[in-house]
C-alpha cells in the first residue's frame, strides 16, 4: 500500500451549509486516506454528514474549507468541466433512491454515461448489455424503471455506475430502500466488484449488517470521524 497514490486523500475537509446563525457544519475538518482497491464503509446517524461527504467525494459539491486530492489531483484546481470529465471517467454513483431516468429503458439508462464519453453506438450497446447481464438483468433490458422491482432498479443503477469501468464507486445507502434479501444481493455485487475488479468502494450505510461487508469502517458523528477501524469479521 505504501508508495501507491491514494484514490482519496482528504485534509481537514470542511463543509458548512448556510451562513451566520443558520450555518450548519455538516463536515468538520475531516482527514482521510483511501488506498486503491479498498472497500470502505461510512457509518453514522442521520445528519452526521455522510451524504455531504459523498457529494464532495464525487465533486458534485465544493468544500467550504480543506483540500481533496483525487488520485493525486487537487480537485480545487479543477473547473466544472474538468470535474465533469474526471467524474465521467473514474467515478460511479449509486444512490439510495436509484435515480434512474424514468422515461428510458434499463438499457438506455446504462448507456447514458457512455453517451457522454462519446462511445460509439454499437460498442455502447454491447457494454451496456454486458453490464446488465453481469447483474442478472439480461431479460429486463427493455423495461422502463417503473416496470422493475426496487432491487432490479438498484441493479440497473449499479450497472450504470460500472459500465464506465470506474476506479471509484460511491454508494450512498444503496440498500436503504430494499428488504434484507435484496440488500444482501446488492452487497454481494458490491463486494464482488471490489474483490474481482479491484474497484475502490465507498459505501454509506447506517445498518451495521451492511457495514460488515467492508474491510474498513469509518464512523461519523456531527461531521467528525468518531472511529476508524479494520473490520475483522468481514462478511464473505
Amino acid at each position: 500500500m505504501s508508495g501507491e497514490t491514494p484514490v482519496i486523500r482528504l485534509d481537514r475537509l470542511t463543509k458548512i451549509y448556510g451562513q451566520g446563525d443558520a450555518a450548519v457544519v455538516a463536515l468538520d475538518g475531516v482527514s482521510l486516506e483511501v488506498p486503491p482497491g479498498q472497500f470502505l464503509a461510512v457509518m453514522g446517524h442521520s445528519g452526521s454528514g455522510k451524504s455531504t461527504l459523498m457529494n464532495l467525494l464525487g465533486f458534485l459539491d465544493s468544500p467550504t474549507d480543506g483540500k481533496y486530492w483525487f488520485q493525486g489531483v487537487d480537485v480545487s484546481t479543477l473547473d466544472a468541466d474538468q470535474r465533469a470529465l474526471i467524474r465521467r471517467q473514474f467515478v460511479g454513483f449509486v444512490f439510495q433512491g436509484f435515480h434512474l431516468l424514468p422515461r428510458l429503458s434499463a438499457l438506455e439508462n446504462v448507456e447514458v454515461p457512455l453517451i457522454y464519453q462519446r462511445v460509439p453506438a454499437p460498442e455502447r450497446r454491447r457494454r451496456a448489455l454486458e453490464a446488465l447481464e453481469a447483474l442478472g438483468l439480461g431479460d429486463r433490458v427493455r423495461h422502463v424503471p417503473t416496470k422493475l422491482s426496487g432491487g432490479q432498479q438498484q441493479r440497473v443503477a449499479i450497472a450504470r455506475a460500472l459500465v464506465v469501468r470506474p476506479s471509484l464507486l460511491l454508494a450512498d445507502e444503496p440498500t436503504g430502500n430494499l428488504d434484507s434479501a435484496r440488500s444482501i444481493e446488492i452487497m454481494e455485487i458490491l463486494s464482488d466488484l471490489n474483490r474481482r475488479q479491484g474497484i475502490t468502494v465507498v459505501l454509506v450505510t447506517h445498518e451495521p449488517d451492511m457495514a460488515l461487508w467492508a474491510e474498513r469502517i469509518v464512523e461519523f458523528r456531527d461531521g467528525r470521524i468518531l472511529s476508524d477501524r479494520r473490520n475483522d469479521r468481514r462478511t464473505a
Partner: protein
Amino acid sequence: MIRQSIWMALREILLNPLRSSLTMLGMVIGVASVVALVSLGQGTTAQVTAEISRMGRNLVMVFPGSGPRRAGAVSDAPPFEMADVQALERVPDVVSLAPVSSTSRPVIYGNRNITTQVTGSSDAFLQVREYALDSGRGFEESDLAGARPVCLLGYQTRQDLFGDQDPLGETIRVGRLACEVIGTLASKGQSQSGMDQDSLVLMPLTTVQRRVVGNTWIGSMFLKVAEDADSARVMDEVQAILRERRRIQAGAEDNFTVRDTREIAAAFTSASTALTALLGAIAAVSLLVGGIGIMNILLVSVTERTREIGLRMALGARAREVLLQFLIESVVISLLGGLIGILLGVLGSLAASGWMQIPWIVRPETLMMAFGVAAAIGVVFGILPARKAARLEPIEALRHE
C-alpha cells in the same frame, strides 16, 4: 450525442402530445403564413410581369376621364384629337404612338356572328402593343389615307369566325361595313385582368372613325417609350402637354388619365397586396408568439426535470452538453412545427392562388427559408431555458424535489 438528444427530444414531445401541439401551434401558423406569403407574393409578381409583357413593355396609356373604359362606353370627358397625337409624338423618348378609336360591333362571316371589339389605329399599334403578325400584312399608308375597308383579326376572333379555314382575302362584315381580311395576329394569351387581347378586329383608324363610328374622336392613345428612358418623366410631360391643350386651369383636376403598364398591372393585383400585408402581420406575430411559447414550455420543462439534469451531471454531463440537449429540444419542437407549417402553407397557397387566379409558385428556396426561420427561432428562444438548465449546480439539481 446529438442523435441521442434528438431522440430524447422526440420522446419528450410524444410523451406530452397535447402540450407539444399547443406549443407548436404558433410555429405552425407562423411558418405556414411565411410560406403562403412568399408563394403568393411570387405568384403575384409572376402575374404582374406576365401582365406587363402581355400589354407591352414600356407602354404608356392615355385615356380621357379618370381611367380606362370598356370599348364603346361614353366618357364625360372630351376625347382626344389628331392634333393631340401630333403634339405627343414630339415628346422626347416617345418611340411611337398609336391613337385608338375603339368600339364594339357585331362581326359576321358566313353564318357566324359574334360581337367583338373593333379597334381603329395606325400601323404603330402592333409595335406599341407588341402584337405579332401571324399571316398576311399590316396597314400601309394608303390604307389609312383612304380609310380603306381592310382588317386584321385577333387570334380568338379568327378562330371564332373561320375555325381552321384560311381567312386571308375573305370579306367579313363589321357592322354594316364589308371589310377584307388582310392579316391575322398571333395569340397574346388570356389576360387575367379581363382584357381579352386576342378578341379584336383591327382596322385603320380612319376607317373606324369615318365608316364605323362616324366621328373623328380618338378614345385613347398608346405610347411606346424608349427602352432606357424614364417613363415617369415622359408621363409628366404628356400630362403637362395635355393639360395645356385641354385648357385645364391650374389647380383643377385632369380630365384624362396617364398610366404606364406597371401601374395598371399593380391595380389589378392590389387585392393580393392587402392579403400579403395581412399574411405578413400574421406571420410575424405568430412566429413571435410561437417562439415565446416554446421558451415558456422549455422553462417549465427545465424546472420539472431539474433532478434529471442533476443526475446527468452526476453521470458526467458537462454544462455544454446539458445546454446542447435543451437547445436541440427547442430546435426539434420548432422544426416539427415548421414542417407542419410548411405543409399547411403550401396547401394554403395552392388554394389561395387558385382563388386569386394567379400562378401557384412554390420554390425550394422558400421552403428552405421557412425551415431556416423555424430553426433560428428554435435556437433563439431555446437559449434562455437551455442556459438555465446548464447553469444548475449538480448537487442542487440532484437534491431538487
